[in-house]
């Protein structure tokens, strides 16, 4: 299963990722993403969206 990874140094808590993929992303109390689970197969196509659209290019889909 593919896994979303966050480059926390690049991340600026814009919050777009959680809008696009709430199934496996939550925000902590300061707006930074928490990846809650690996990306299941049926969600993999959609998981490319936050990686592509993150304004800080802080997301990576691994595997």
């Amino acid at each position: 299963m593919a896994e979303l990874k966050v480059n926390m140094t690049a991340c600026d808590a814009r919050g777009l990722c959680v809008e696009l993929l709430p199934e496996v992303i939550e925000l902590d109390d300061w707006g930074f993403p928490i990846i809650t689970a690996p990306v299941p197969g049926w969600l993999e196509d959609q998981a490319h969206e936050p990686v592509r659209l993150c304004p800080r290019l802080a997301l990576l889909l691994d595997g």
Partner: protein
Amino acid sequence: MLAAGGGPAAPLRALLIGGYFGTWVDAVAAADAPFSEAGLGELKAGVGAGLVVALPASACGLVETARIARYLADESAGQCGPCGFGLDAIADQLARLAMGAEPDLALLQRWVGQVGSGRGACKHPDGTVRMIASTLEVFSREVEQHVRGWCGG
């Protein structure tokens, strides 16, 4: 291991084993443990930086931890959110707990869970939160007292 340092000069409440990123262990539980990964592993602790802080029974573990947590939060390089914002907030909440100033324990536990799970850009928040989590466990009696507004230390 305490004997090697000349033995305790006063009755002890707890030991912080492994330095500031280490683990608080009750002094009675730690008394006979050998200073090795295997010996300390049974106490859910480790050798870490190789340092041991002995907390006398006359001092308060929460006050001491709040001081360490503030230091570590201030030492954050500020390169990522969980560390820069998270540790600062946790240190503030610990200070409230140490002073008995209406701490929000649920919030503190929630932040400890959010910040210390390998999310930071480096391991600084993980180690800090690890130490803080052991504080809340070992000094659970003191936590209860502080919530009610007094300190036995």
